[in-house]
């Protein structure tokens, strides 16, 4: 058996540095990552990277920062298993490996000039934030912007500072709901779907962008269709186990589609007839 170093391998990782770690909740931590030489990740909002901790493994993680942020990128990771627990152990200055970005992100060029309704539930705000911040940084290129945010409890809310800023902005309509309130909570209580009927929108010029847990999509899409938003203008980002990121390993397959290459962002008209998708 001969062995050859493979310089152009698609599995090569970029040795990157964690430059900031913040604990957001009991389960979620925020990481800011710097690529070698301070290179930009050069991603589209909605794309993901494969994060490596050598000896532990690799996992697909969505990019949470906008490409308008240069010099580093951000991600938020919930501690759920072996890999994410190991990632949570790491501190500022520690190294991780990065491959990517992978997948098809949100079609920002197509969104330009249109009104946008963002629907984020739970951890969905993490990848959606890459697009929200992109839109805010290029605010005049877009029409009306509404953000609908849902979380389990007020304590589960991520990016509280940024959310506070969104609520203050005059060029963003922000509303939020929690499944379970606490005594200090003054806002809405209920499912994310309960916020949709209250949004006023012009359906033919509105794109809705939904990211949340897998069970949520059907219900949110049904509400948006009631608002007459065309199917092709409803965008979702689907969560699957994107092991290789290269359309080969098979784990992320949805019917004939590979989520890692054909997605993770899909328009509803492309997947509504696809069993297993929603």
């Amino acid at each position: 058996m001969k062995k050859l170093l493979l310089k152009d391998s698609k599995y090569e990782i970029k040795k990157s540095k964690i430059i900031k770690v913040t604990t957001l909740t009991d389960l979620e931590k925020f990481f800011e990552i710097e690529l070698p030489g301070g290179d930009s990740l050069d991603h589209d909002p909605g794309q993901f990277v494969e994060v490596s901790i050598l000896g532990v493994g690799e996992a697909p993680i969505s990019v949470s920062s906008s490409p308008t942020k240069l010099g580093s990128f951000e991600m938020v990771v919930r501690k759920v298993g072996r890999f994410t627990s190991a990632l949570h152990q790491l501190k500022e200055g520690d190294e991780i490996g990065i491959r990517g970005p992978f997948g098809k992100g949100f079609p920002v060029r197509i969104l330009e000039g249109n009104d946008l309704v963002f629907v984020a539930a739970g951890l969905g705000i993490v990848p959606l934030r890459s697009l929200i911040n992109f839109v805010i940084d290029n605010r005049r290129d877009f029409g009306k912007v509404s953000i609908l945010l849902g979380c389990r409890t007020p304590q589960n809310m991520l990016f509280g500072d940024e959310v506070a800023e969104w609520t203050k902005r005059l060029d963003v309509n922000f509303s939020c709901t929690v499944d379970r309130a606490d005594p200090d909570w003054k806002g809405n209580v209920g499912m994310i779907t309960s916020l949709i009927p209250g949004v006023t929108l012009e359906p033919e010029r509105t794109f809705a962008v939904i990211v949340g847990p897998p069970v949520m999509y059907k219900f949110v899409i049904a509400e948006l269709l009631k608002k007459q938003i065309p199917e092709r203008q409803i965008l979702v980002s689907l969560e699957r186990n994107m092991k290789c990121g290269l359309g080969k390993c098979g784990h992320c397959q949805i019917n004939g589609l590979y989520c890692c290459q054909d997605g993770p962002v899909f328009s509803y008209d492309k997947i509504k007839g696809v069993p297993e998708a929603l």
Partner: protein
Amino acid sequence: MLYNLSQYVVLKKEDFNGFISDLVKEQKVVAPVAKGCGQFSFEEVKSGSEISIDYIPTILPPKKYFMPRDENIATYDLSNGEDMEPVVEYEKMLLFGVHTCDLAGIQCLNMVFSERPRDLNYLIRKNQITIIGYECNFYCDRFASCRLVHNHSPNGGYDLFFTDVGDRFMIHVNTNTGEELVAKSNLLRKAGEKDFEDLQRVREAKNREFAKNEIPIEHEKIPELFDRAYNSKVWEDLDKRCVACGNCTNVCPSCYCFNMIDEPNLDLKTGRRYRQWDSCQNESFAKVAGGESFRKERGARQRHRYYRKFKYPIAKFSRFFCTGCGRCSRTCMACINLKETLNSLIKEQGMENPEAGKV
């Protein structure tokens, strides 16, 4: 004239062992050998007498040389941080006696791994392997369905191709590599008219033989069958029977799904990252971190396997990924049989045509 004379050479059967011995002198030769209990396996051979030329599909297909079960893709060293070196491991070898179903399986893998983003590990390894195909003149057993997917006759994918025409082998020379092998041997002679007549006779007899054991549906109608059968009761039946062992995907010549695993050495500083065959039949295969599993039911996972053979690859690669080798049916502990499944689907959808596939 269907055959081009200059592309054929002839090897007398009494010279077969000599021909293999000459190959062995040059490189590693892998060929089917008998393992007992009617089982065969591709293994390294040193002489022609070790080869079981009349074999039915081996336990594992030749895929094990193209994408080994465990395949190192990188080594790492943590002494100075996250340092990883991607590697490819390969070996020059000659595969002798590959049936047409398995040639088709290799073609499927070639398509998958040459599709962008290309998989260099696979492509480098594949280019080190010389392939000599071997024609089946008879059906292997009741599990084979190569005729249905048009893989009972050679469709390329080899350097040389042997056909038994009685007291000698007719050999089709398909590539430069094949020509070089021919040029090196002094046991071969050019084919003549008589050899072609014999080859034609063998192929005609084969067509009659392979017209018998068929599934009652036209080849062109199979995609339509699967378009219609997504919610079939047949999958519910498989749900009750499948034990989710993953044997069917391991032995499949066109199943290529894998997992990626890190394995530290005992020093905990160095180690390797490798990929390993994985199976869509495992419940955890399509599970995400949040715990959601997208193919929880065994029936849904079996359906996924069938659709990855008969539907999805049609759109992507314009070919079936079932090669008709019959391995999945032969190996299934729950006796899930691909031909029976197809028959049940055909019957349920009312697409039965007893005349289909007859020559």
